[in-house]
């Protein structure tokens, strides 16, 4: 049994999320990961930007920081550099993390600073009322794409990979058990980690794109996901339109705060010399 309530600020409930939203599923997965790793609540910092997903920190009993739109990773970088011993997590969404905050995302990955980013991807701006986002599929609908989206969506995991992240994984709200395990791995990884989670937004993305209820969207996730392992045995045609879930990148690279500690030693010895 996971004592979820030990990690929640129960008095702050009910939460603001809509019926059928995937945010709560991700929240539970995060708590499971933190509990299994035995992290002390005082040593966890959760930083978020603006949007539905970014409301997560308000409900958890850690050091929590709800920042400006897109800037969570920048704030988290400051926290981590001053206290490298803390476990710093960033909660963001597809709009917050890859549109307004895209620059911070790619540069934190490039630096390979030890942050764990959990990016809730619901393919739309939920909090502001259903505008299309950088991950809205081509041809998809939002309140700002009434004639269908003519842009190409980001592949967030490919973006993190190309930017140099140490650990990149993808899961969905449907794969809640796997999601918890992936977040656990991401926290443990020294270096920049990103876990993308596809979450249903039945209120806006589902309704605008006639995808049914939340349960239908979760079923879609189940039926269209392919594990990294299974994908190896499949051809490009079979993989067309499928969502690859599991660990996509896991590599060893110098981590920024560790490199910075070394730099301090070098600078000090140079001054003494």
């Amino acid at each position, binding site marked *: 049994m996971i004592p979820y309530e030990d990690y929640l*600020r129960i008095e*702050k409930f009910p939460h603001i999320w809509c019926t059928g939203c995937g945010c709560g599923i991700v929240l539970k997965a995060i708590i499971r990961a933190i509990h299994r790793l035995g992290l002390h*609540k*005082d*040593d966890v*910092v959760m*930083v978020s930007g603006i949007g539905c997903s970014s409301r997560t*920190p*308000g409900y958890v*009993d*850690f*050091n*929590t*920081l*709800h*920042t*400006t739109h897109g*800037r969570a*990773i*920048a*704030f*988290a*970088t*400051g*926290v*981590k*550099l*001053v*206290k490298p*011993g*803390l476990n710093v997590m960033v909660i963001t969404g597809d709009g917050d993390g890859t549109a307004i905050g895209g*620059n*911070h995302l*790619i*540069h934190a990955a490039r630096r390979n600073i030890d942050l764990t980013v959990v990016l809730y991807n619901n393919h739309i701006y939920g909090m502001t009322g259903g505008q299309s986002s950088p991950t809205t599929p081509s041809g998809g609908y939002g309140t700002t794409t009434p004639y269908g989206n003519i842009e190409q969506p980001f592949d967030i995991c490919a973006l993190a990979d190309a930017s140099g992240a140490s650990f990149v994984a993808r899961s969905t709200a449907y794969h809640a058990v796997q999601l918890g395990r992936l977040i656990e791995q991401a926290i443990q990884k020294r270096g920049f980690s990103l876990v993308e989670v596809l979450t249903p937004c039945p209120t806006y993305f589902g309704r605008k794109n006639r995808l049914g209820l939340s349960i239908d969207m979760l079923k879609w996730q189940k039926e269209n996901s392919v594990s990294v392992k299974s994908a190896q045995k499949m051809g490009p045609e079979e993989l067309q339109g499928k969502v690859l879930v599991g660990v996509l990148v896991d590599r060893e690279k110098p981590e920024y705060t560790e490199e*910075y500690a070394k*730099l*301090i030693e*070098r*600078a*000090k010895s*140079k*001054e003494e010399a």
Partner: protein
Amino acid sequence: MMQGNEACVEGAIAAGVGFFAGYPITPSSEIAELMAEKLPQRGGVFIQMEDEIGAMGAVIGASLAGAKAMTATSGPGFSLKQENLGYASMTEVPCVIVNVQRGGPSTGLPTLPSQGDVMQARWGAHGDHPVIALVASSVEDTFNQTVRSFSLAEQYRVPVVLLLDEIVGHVNEKARIPSADEIEVAERKKPTVPPDQYHPYEPTESDIPPMANFGEGFRFHVTGLSHDRTGFPTNDPKEIDQLIRRINRKVDRYRDDIIECREYGLDDARLGVFAYGSTARSARRAAYLARQEGIKVGLLEPLVLWPFPEAEVFALAQKVSHIIVPEMNLGQIAHEVRCSCRGKAEVQSLTRVDGELIRPAQILEEIREISR
């Protein structure tokens, strides 16, 4: 001999800066470059961020983790920092933002001086927010004002903007740097209650709530949304009203402790000059030359622009017939001086926006004109 930007770095180090995040921009880059060299030697952290916005965000995160934190920039970068500067005002996170002013608007004049950001320093972020802004007219001032910026930020839990300009930032001149035991820096007040009784935005008698650092057992919430005393978002009009009035009152009620001015020859002055930053240097010279011609001129030089020294200006207005306000902008502070005079003295705005500094001769000419 020292450069203004160098004195800023030395002042920050003397004040105990532990974190600097910046982005390259002329004419402030020397501050970042020197920080990159000196901060790690003292165990501190320097990071060049991907943009100005990120630098301001990292500074706030660093301060919440317990470090004295700062950034330095110039006009265009100062514009980009405004949203997070407002966040620091709202969430009461101490931090120092140095703006080595250059000609604007827009990209303007990267290598030439200006004082065009003085109003932006007060009202650049949206909403009613508290801010303290200091100015400096010499290299020595820059050192001392940087130290004071940290003190004020930590003491009042408010972002402090230090407004330099390209002249002060780049001039090389003699400066007396105080020894370590002469330097006093205020520290942020820590909570004295156990974590379960700690509310990060408790409206205390002083209006300045004690501040815990992340990772020290106080698991609190910080948000830029309107929040109650516990730090969580609220829509309760009473709580919101109390918050917004309190964070602004923090600066207003302590204005006498914050405001600092220098005076030259005000005792018998018949004519006043109100000048700040590098323009105050020219004004001092002009006042000296005018006195040699028998014109009784006095100079009031503010070291703090925001909160504005209204009472000091009003006192001057009661003594003199005119107050000349030379500044390298189109009269941003002259307007403020005019309000503070409440009709007691005529205010003459003397402006320059061509990238050239205001010379003593230009001010002297105005003094002669008025006293004729």
